[in-house]
């Protein structure tokens, strides 16, 4: 009697509902979903536009972002750069003659200082590996001067104004540390100065144009996206135990880098290779 109950029960529990779809069910699902998949793909391909990652990783940074960052940097404070004047003898001189007597009026800078404000630093355009920007600096202060006017020694603290507005070209590169570096190309930019001199009866503006090497004034900027030099891979562990996974270090190398600019955006692409450490 027991056997008569047990055997069918065993059949029932063992031959219960199969885990997988039957062939007919599977074919129905495949056939009915195929046209929907195709039409959705058509729609999505239209919406997503042209994406063609020529390399393993690609980063696109719009002009608007660069300007947002640079604008904030420029407007943040108005004492971005400090200037300390050192002794300059003479900064200006003129030879004069009165009733046959020759003399020299001259003025020296003794000390002084001022703060320059970065009034603007904006990206004008991006083209290939180059970033074209304009930098504008301005500042006023006082400078201590001494000199001679008509043979009479005197000193004063006239106002000095400094101004610079120049286009600058930056070159963009991937560094050995796998960061994007934006570096100014060598160029002499002109810092214009005006000293409103009033020394005894001598009142003249003194204009000087001072050439500066831009690569010394602006250091390379490293951009925020970088590739790390190593990665930890979670791989199955070789030893029997509770831990089934171990983290294995790999070295990463970047290569075949392309930097380009399209649609007012900076485009950086590169390949990546992995090697177990």
């Amino acid at each position: 009697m027991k056997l008569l109950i047990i055997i069918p029960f065993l059949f029932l529990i063992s031959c219960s509902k199969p885990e997988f779809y039957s062939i007919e069910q599977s074919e129905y699902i495949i056939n009915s979903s195929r046209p929907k998949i195709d039409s959705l793909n058509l729609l999505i391909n239209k919406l997503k536009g042209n994406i063609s990652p020529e390399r393993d990783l690609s980063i696109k940074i719009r002009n608007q972002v660069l300007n947002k960052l640079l604008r904030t940097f420029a407007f943040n404070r108005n004492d971005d750069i400090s200037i300390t004047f050192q002794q300059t003898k003479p900064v200006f001189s003129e030879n004069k003659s009165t009733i046959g007597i020759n003399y020299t009026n001259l003025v020296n800078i003794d000390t002084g200082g001022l703060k320059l404000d970065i009034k603007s630093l904006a990206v004008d355009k991006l083209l290939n590996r180059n970033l074209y920007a304009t930098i504008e600096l301005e500042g006023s202060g006082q400078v201590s001067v001494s000199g001679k006017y008509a043979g009479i020694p005197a000193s004063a603290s006239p106002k000095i104004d400094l101004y610079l507005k120049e286009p600058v070209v930056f070159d963009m590169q991937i560094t050995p540390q796998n960061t994007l570096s934006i570096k100014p190309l060598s160029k002499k930019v002109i810092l214009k100065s005006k000293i409103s001199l009033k020394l005894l009866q001598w009142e003249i503006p003194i204009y000087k144009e001072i050439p500066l090497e831009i690569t010394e004034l602006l250091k390379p900027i490293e951009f925020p996206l970088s590739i790390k030099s190593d990665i930890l891979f979670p791989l199955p562990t070789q030893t029997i135990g509770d831990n089934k996974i171990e983290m294995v270090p790999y070295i990463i190398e970047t290569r075949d880098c392309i930097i380009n600019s399209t649609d007012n955006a900076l485009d950086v692409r590169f390949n990546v290779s992995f090697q177990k450490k």
Partner: protein
Amino acid sequence: MKYIKQILHFIIFILSFNIQSCFVLKEMTGTNIDEIQFSKARQAKIHEIQLNSLEKLAARLQKSNQMATEDISFTVSRDFLSKIIKQYIGTSGWLDKDTRFTIEKTELTLQNGSGIASFSIQAFNSFYKVEVDLVMDCLMNFRIDTTDIFIEIEPFNIIPVVKTGLILSGTEEIISNLIKINLHNIGRNLPNLKLPVEMKDTILVKSANMVVADKINMIINSPERNISYNFKIKEILILEEGVYFSLSVDKVGVR
């Protein structure tokens, strides 16, 4: 009579062990359908996932397409993701003290809306002397946590691969089921893979110091400063070509 009863009980016990896998039923139906059934069932499951993902992706893009206006976009190509999962080829591990497995092959299927990583696994149970081939299909998900990008792998389908012309025996199926459970647990508990991409939230503007010896002698100094900002993820889209991240930059400040 007593002995006949005992022998009968023993036979039923052995039969039930085999019946548990419907071995008898399969033989009785005379059809060798496991290989085709598994393959079709796998395809069907993948189609279901693809359709579901496509519908969600289409709805998202139609509602708000960030792709043309994002501040920063970052794309991880299909080739790169393939390179990542290929690192698992040839790796071996232990499901339990008797069962060793090896990942023989990997395959990446990237469609609009979904990414599926498939692992072909060979497992050998030394206690029962059973070798089982399995395919484990996993959904790939992507997330950003602060400045790191993670790939999550989530198994959704583990099926035995039946050798052509054969069907799974009862013992093979039992071992296969145990292996599936263990594999599923390992897959679900696999630590997320952190992509080797660092998204810093500051830009360092280095200090500059120059001495001018010209018409006016001067020393020019600018201090080191940091431009800080927030990244906000607008979209993470899985596309045929790769995985697309779109980010916006705001709360810019200088320190």
